[in-house]
């Protein structure tokens, strides 16, 4: 039996005033395989932070650790003022999460999904009622209030999924490839919702395979083989890698990958 080394709590001031996430040396090992290899970064309050990388670069693993779904092997992480090693449950109340694969209950009605997620996030009865009314209006779903989520077009589902992910007004929302499969106009409509949430002060942490969406982020990190190879504003990354767009930047960096997914 291996003993884990004694875990020191984070030092005072580990997270600076204007930041909402700080990771130092965040690592995940599966046996001999280092999926996430000592990554360090900070995310500022209210920014849209793009978390890019090829399939298998370690994005999802890193995101799962940040959300407290997977435990880290090593590193120090502070999220919304709490130490990820000690206060996972507290952190979960401060964050929202939406993924392309799972976000809503298809067999529940629209209002039931809102009610369920409101309950999970600990909203009070009257607050849930108020939020439900607000969302039905804002998403133009009043007529579909009693429809099963399964029957909604994908674009509506995504908007609803995003809305319930932030129903408790979290400090950060994690979006894992939120826009896959929808038409170009709906995809852009979704990003306008992201902008609105960011304007309300919610920090957005988002992964995507659409490189035009990387341009909509305030800052972008690009992971290659478990490490963060680049992190800056899209404009500066393009300048640094002498590229016209983020697609070229991504290709330049991802081509350096050695491991096969």
């Amino acid at each position: 039996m291996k003993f884990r080394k004694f875990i020191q709590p984070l030092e005072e001031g580990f997270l600076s005033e204007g930041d909402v996430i700080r990771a130092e040396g965040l690592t995940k090992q599966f046996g001999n395989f280092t999926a996430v290899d000592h990554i360090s970064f900070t995310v500022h309050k209210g920014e849209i932070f793009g978390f890019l990388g090829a399939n298998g670069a370690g994005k999802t693993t890193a995101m799962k650790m940040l959300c407290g779904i997977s435990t880290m092997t090593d590193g120090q992480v502070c999220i919304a003022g709490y130490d990820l090693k000690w206060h996972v449950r507290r952190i979960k109340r401060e964050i929202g999460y939406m993924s392309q694969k799972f976000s809503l209950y298809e067999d529940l009605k629209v209002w039931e999904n809102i009610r369920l997620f409101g309950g999970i996030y600990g909203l009070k009865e009257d607050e849930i009622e108020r939020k439900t009314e607000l969302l039905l209006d804002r998403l133009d779903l009043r007529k579909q209030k009693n429809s099963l989520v399964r029957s909604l077009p994908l674009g509506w589902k995504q908007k609803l999924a995003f809305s319930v992910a932030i129903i408790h007004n979290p400090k950060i929302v994690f979006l894992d490839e939120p826009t896959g499969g929808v038409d170009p106009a709906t995809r852009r409509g979704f990003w306008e919702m992201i902008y609105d949430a960011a304007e309300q002060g919610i920090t957005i942490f988002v992964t995507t395979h659409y490189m035009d969406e990387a341009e909509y982020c305030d800052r972008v990190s690009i992971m290659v083989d478990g490490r963060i190879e680049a992190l800056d504003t899209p404009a500066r990354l393009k300048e640094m890698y002498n590229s016209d767009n983020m697609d070229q930047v991504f290709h330049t960096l991802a081509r350096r990958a050695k491991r096969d997914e």
Partner: protein
Amino acid sequence: MFTVVAEDIAKSYSRKVRALKGVSLSVDKGELFGLIGPDGAGKTTLFRILTTLILPDSGTASVCGYDIVKDYKEIRKRVGYMPGKFSLYQDLSVRENINFFATLFGTNLKDNYETVKDIYSQIEPFERRKAGALSGGMKQKLALSCALIHRPDVLFLDEPTTGVDPVSRKEFWAMLKRLKEQGLSIIVSTPYMDEATLCDRIALIRNGSFMDTDSPSGIISKFDRTLLSVKGSRMPALLKALRADDRVHSCFAFGDTHHIVMNKSVSADVIGSLHSSLLARGFDDVEIKSIAPNIEDCYMYLDTINR
């Protein structure tokens, strides 16, 4: 003679769900034909009809000269189909999967190795690994090998690159190009508009109908509006201001710029006048340029006028 011909194919799943509302297409031998559109547009339904898995309500179609209803057995010998969700057996190894699909068509890997070599050789080092333990990119290569193992004349690929990163997507399209050069006809669907230009011809599909069918350059050449790109420091505010302008038909974010389609009757100096009206609203660092459309611009424009 065309390898695939479809005439006015319609299919409904219920009175409410009309998946296909009468679509027609023809695909030549050695042609790479793309179905471009979002989830729910009807792409998978069309694939299932052409691969003889379901029957259309109306319309006719033939594949390799055989009728999709009468001669479905002949068609099944001649087509390779890679569904959107991988059809692999997760608890069989790589080698067992390819052997299984080969056996279904009365052949084996050895006899047809040349056909799949380009792709299969990349996963051969992992032959004994279970398919379920492969990475997404390797599963994709194995599924494509399985669809090719009986040397089909036509290959149907339903969203092979969805959820795949940009680098792997480019590699996949390079593989398709090499297959096409060997004379294979390929019909591929994708929600990624940038992949449209890699096809010989495309159909832009939306809500069960084709908005247009042509070569990518043909579709672009039909775009008859003024298209401008606009860039400034306050992009979200700029988007709202542009949408409020009555000279603007539609406006969407496009990477680091906004693309705006102007209404038909705009003056020659629309850039100058737009510039000054934006300046009056406090946007003092705006850069406006006239640009050529790409396929995504065309799709979104056709989408707005077909709605």
